């Protein structure tokens, strides 16, 4: 009886002590931890949304300043976001050393102008939007070779203007801008070109079916040679109409006819993501690894047939056109420039870096072979004290051999090495590339043949760099052409390092997948 009583009292005492410990320590800690997690999660989501919007503005708004006939300087702004933005501040540094900050509240819907007055010639102009995005404004003459006046231009015209004039802007079309989608109209195929009214992409990911007739196109894009005029003469008209030249095959095309929307990219290392609604299954979906090294390439074309009048609707589109940073030095031989541009771009959850050389025919220099070697250094957050300490170093080497034909020639290229060095060691890596096509013609006919790989780009997963969206990355490059006699033409980015704000689109693309995969 006594033992039972003792056991009971002991049990109650232990229970009480446990309850006291639980109430005084464990419970507050647990509650506080849960509250802290929910606070932090909420704060992070808020910050991500905030930052994403700021970055979209930085990438989706382009501007340049120019001088009018009366001596007034104006900033021309092109807002491709679809949503209005507010410019709150303008910073101007003049060429006489003076500077000015103007505060204003200028709302820009799609295209707008801001008057800078008739002060001295601006050297540096920056716009600051109400969300805190800082937009660098270059001189318009640095961007376009010919003077183009923008007057009452539509949103689609703005896109056309940007694309055909090769502004380094990114395009983001969502269903907020076009709730009904974009529906190009197939036109009289005998009059111009069958490519009018077609969407086509050469990408690094396979076509994904989201539901019934809704598809996701996504991946790194690179020009595809079988769309090139040498293989596909019908494309020539479109290329000539757009660019006055057919030196490069297209990587991505979306076109609604001569007066409508034209989106066209012929750069290696671009990134596309789009949700399209097709009203038939008459599309091309096949693998094609041309332009991709150590990675797969896929082709999507809709409609597949010349006689089809099937329409499609673009519900969402992101096209990240690579940023090209010009290497300002002048090579000793103007035609042989191993480093004309350093290329940087953002993809799904990876950075894309690369180089572009000058475009020339090695045969004109008497070279039967040509070798191109290069190293690209990439470092997050800051410029490393020594470039060899960069977090990621990419090395590549490729060689081209001349192939003679009766009245033209071309060069066949093969990669000797493509490696990526990071904290995880050195591994064989992959790349995308673009070929420069030279025109050969006799009085009877003409052909375009590939003579030089002039663009090479490499994806770098963000986890290898330890970066996330909105963070700076620094890139520099060294390249060299090697002639058959062993002469080395080397070059490096003479402005030091390229500074680039990394902006992956994973969140946006994933939100599309969730949105369009669900039923309804």
């Amino acid at each position, binding site marked *: 009886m006594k033992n039972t009583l003792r056991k009971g009292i002991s049990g109650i005492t232990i229970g009480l*002590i446990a309850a*006291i*410990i639980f109430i*005084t*320590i464990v419970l*507050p*800690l647990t509650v*506080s*931890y849960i*509250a*802290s997690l929910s*606070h*932090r999660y*909420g*704060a*992070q989501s*808020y*910050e991500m949304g*905030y930052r994403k919007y700021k970055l979209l503005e930085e990438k989706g708004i382009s501007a340049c300043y120019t001088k009018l006939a009366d001596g007034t300087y104006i900033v021309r702004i092109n807002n491709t976001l679809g949503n209005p933005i507010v410019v*709150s*501040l303008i*910073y101007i*540094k003049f060429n006489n050393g003076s500077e000015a*900050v103007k*505060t204003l509240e200028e709302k820009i819907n799609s295209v707008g102008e801001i008057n800078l007055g008739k002060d001295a010639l601006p050297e*540096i102009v*920056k716009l*600051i939007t*109400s*969300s*805190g995005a*800082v937009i660098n404004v270059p001189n318009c003459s640095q961007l376009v070779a010919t003077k183009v006046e923008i007057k009452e231009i539509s949103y689609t015209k703005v896109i056309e203007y940007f694309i055909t004039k090769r502004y380094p802007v990114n395009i983001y079309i969502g269903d907020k801008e076009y709730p009904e989608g974009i529906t190009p109209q197939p036109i009289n195929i005998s009059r111009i070109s069958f490519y009018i009214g077609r969407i086509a992409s050469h990408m690094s990911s396979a076509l994904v079916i989201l539901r019934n007739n809704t598809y996701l196109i996504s991946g790194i894009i690179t020009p595809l040679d079988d769309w090139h005029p040498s293989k596909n003469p019908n494309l020539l008209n479109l290329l000539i109409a757009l660019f006055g030249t057919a030196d490069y095959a297209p990587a991505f095309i979306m076109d609604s006819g001569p007066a409508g929307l034209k989106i066209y990219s012929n750069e290696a290392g671009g990134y596309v993501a789009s949700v399209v609604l097709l009203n038939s299954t008459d599309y091309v979906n096949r693998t094609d690894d041309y332009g991709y090294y150590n990675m797969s390439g896929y082709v999507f074309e809709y409609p597949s047939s010349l006689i089809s009048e099937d329409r499609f609707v673009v519900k969402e589109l992101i096209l990240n056109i690579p940023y090209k940073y010009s290497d300002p030095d002048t090579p000793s031989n103007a035609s042989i420039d191993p480093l004309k541009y350093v290329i940087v771009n953002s993809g799904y959850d990876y950075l894309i870096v690369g180089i572009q050389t000058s475009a020339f025919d090695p045969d004109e220099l008497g070279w039967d072979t040509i070798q191109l070697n290069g190293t690209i250094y990439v470092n997050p957050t*800051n*410029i*490393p*004290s*020594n470039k060899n300490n960069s977090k990621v170093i990419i090395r590549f080497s490729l060689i081209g051999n001349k192939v003679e034909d009766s009245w033209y020639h071309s060069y066949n290229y093969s990669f000797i090495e493509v490696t990526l060095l990071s904290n995880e060691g050195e591994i064989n890596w992959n790349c995308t590339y673009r070929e420069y096509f030279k025109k050969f013609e006799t009085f009877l006919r003409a052909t375009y043949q590939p003579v030089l790989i002039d663009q090479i780009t490499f994806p770098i997963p963000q986890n290898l760099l330890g970066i996330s969206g909105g963070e*700076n990355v620094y890139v520099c490059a060294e390249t060299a052409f090697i002639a058959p006699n062993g002469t080395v033409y080397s070059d490096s980015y003479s402005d*030091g*390092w390229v*500074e680039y704000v990394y902006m992956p689109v994973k969140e946006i693309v994933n939100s599309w997948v969730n949105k369009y995969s669900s039923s309804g």
Partner: protein
Amino acid sequence: MIKKALSPVLASIILASVSLAIGITILMWLSSQSTLSLRETQIESIKAKILSQENLVIIHAYYNGSHVVIYLCNMGYSPVFLGPLRVYSSHNKLIAYPTTNYTLYVAEGPLISEVNEKTTVPIGSISEFTEKLDIRNLSLIPNNITLYTIKPYHETSNYYILVYSVSLSSGTYTVELWSATIIYEKMYLLKPHAEIISV
């Protein structure tokens, strides 16, 4: 000598008292630890919330031959405190503290004057300074710091000019300005804002 046995009741009371004393001490220690932990969690939680709403913007930065000049504004909706400024390159690493090493001016319309709103507080976390600012010499970290307050642009239409008098040799430098916050009357670092300048 006859030893008198301790009464079992007394022995039980002593044992119970000692156990209770040890138990209470352990409980108090655990409780103080949990309070500390709770406080740290609270600070981190408050900081995360403030950080998410901070929107300091560097408009432009350059070196004019004798000073690093930074134009900035606060595009958020709450006031922000300005923390330390780091100017570094591969061969040079400088750190400047507000009010002692650099001065902040506010542009209110056409008028430019030194910012009057300053707050002096102790530093909340030394390790934050050593880790985030890469300071190896602890004597370079002040005990107290006087912070400038930057008001939101949306309320005032003011922008700010930071001037740091320094001699820099030619090269490329990273200018890194830290925003800061005050929690429980102590200063904590928030977010770095960086620009590259060429000298």
